[in-house]
């Protein structure tokens, strides 16, 4: 019943992309975009959506605000993983600085960000 690692990564990239594009299309914050997306979900499933937004929201918002794409966000969230000896999987064209560099930078941001420290502690 549990999705494979690959499917988890696809799901993450898909959802983060939609959040990013909602913020872009409605010219809103990432947080507002997440709330908007959750409000679109049928009532019965909204609770689940808000929990995910609580758990992952600050992280996603922090990184999208720094122009990082869904591949970078999901790799730094460890919802996309690079198996040993395997290439880094990505849907979008890699950032100019290179995907690995961008992921390392994202992980540093997560580590140093105060707001996120509590959340990661959580």
């Amino acid at each position, binding site marked *: 019943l549990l999705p494979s*690692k*690959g499917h988890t990564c*696809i799901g993450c990239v898909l959802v983060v992309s939609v959040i990013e594009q909602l913020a872009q*299309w409605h010219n809103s914050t990432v947080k507002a975009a997440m709330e908007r997306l959750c409000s*679109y979900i049928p009532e019965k*499933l909204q609770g689940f959506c808000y929990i995910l937004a609580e758990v992952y929201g600050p992280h996603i918002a922090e990184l999208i605000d720094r122009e990082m794409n869904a591949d970078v966000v999901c790799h730094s969230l460890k919802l996309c993983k690079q198996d040993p000896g395997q*290439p880094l999987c*990505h*849907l979008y064209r890699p950032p100019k600085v290179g995907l690995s560099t961008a992921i390392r930078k994202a992980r540093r941001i997560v580590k140093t960000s105060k707001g996120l420290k509590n959340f990661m502690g959580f």
Partner: protein
Amino acid sequence: SSVCAFPLLANLCEKIKHVLRNELPFEDLDGDKFSTFPTLRGYHWRGRDCDDRNNTVYPGRRPDNWDEERDSNCNGIWGVDPKDGIPYEKKFCKGADSQGVVLLGDSAGAHFHIPPEWMTVSQMSMKSFANLPMAFTNELDWPQFSEITGFLNSTIGGWTDSLYLRLRSRNRCNHRDLQNISKNGGSSGNLLRLMKSLARNQLWDHPAIVIYATIGNDVCNGNNDTLADMTTPKEMLSNVMRALRYLDTRLPNGSHVILTGLVDGRFLWDNLHDRYHPLGQLNRDITYSQLYSFLDCLQVSPCRGWMTPNETLRNLTSERALQLSNVLKEIARSERFANFDVFYMDFPLAQTAEKWRRMGGEPWQLIEPVDGFHPSQIAGALGTSITWQKALQEWPHVLGEENPFNDQIEAVFKDQGGH
């Protein structure tokens, strides 16, 4: 899985696993494999049960005492005509070649579809996700709109046309006699287990038209050495013969089996690779070629052999598909069975594309936009009309005669209880 360790949940988990493993309706109170609940393998997949507390009442059975007292086969025709005292089922359906339609298939037959509205932010609203619970409890399949067993008007674009609907309008006694026994990932190998969920009693039930259509998974997989993991012609012969022998023990005499060849999946790359994916249309930054590479890298590609920039690999995959189709063709030509005759037909992709072109359509519209792999709603509906014409011309006896009483059935029983 640890959740299932709790005593209170163990029983429920066991039932869920049994249903998921055997593709049977989750809610089936009388255990006759037909349900009054839509999803979770319910009546979106099989004719709706009209009495889920009585396992002798289900779609497709021969009528009990001409259904004088009750509608034992759920076709909505029962009772006695007060004018002459003749039971309606006897008057309208006796000798009418009534038969059901069964699909043994894969995600194409189950009609896998992820709504593009779920990722198109420019049109996104609450309405976009209204179908999400139904989609997930139907495994992202939409059999109720599908090419072989569809019976509801499509709400996912295009229109619904199906072999079942055409058989029903040819003979209204066939109402509700449908079974979509398909599964995402279905192939000639795993279909052998899947087909055990067929609900057909050789003595009590009407004959059936069985469509055997595993159109790609025998050559499609996400593994690194995709060619090595493809079904070989020898394995295909063995798998299909085992399936047909099993069907010979289950199908009532007078049934028919139509073996459908594998698709030529080069159509996918040729018509999609440089087009933008729905998720990439806002910023024009994701093509299907990028999607295919991403799925490949994650090793979850539905079909590494065709969803690849490697033309040699695409050609090798199509070559194997053709070999496997030829196995099916040979079986139809040379094998005989006691309770059914066997036919072969190519998967009608080329004719479908040509028909759609003549209607002013574009080839890429025949492919599911989100997964870039499955036939779309339009492709299914067009495929039905092509298959129907072929059957009418080449195997007219398979479809049964037009029932001369259709109009009277409609006059007396209207929509026969609907679906």
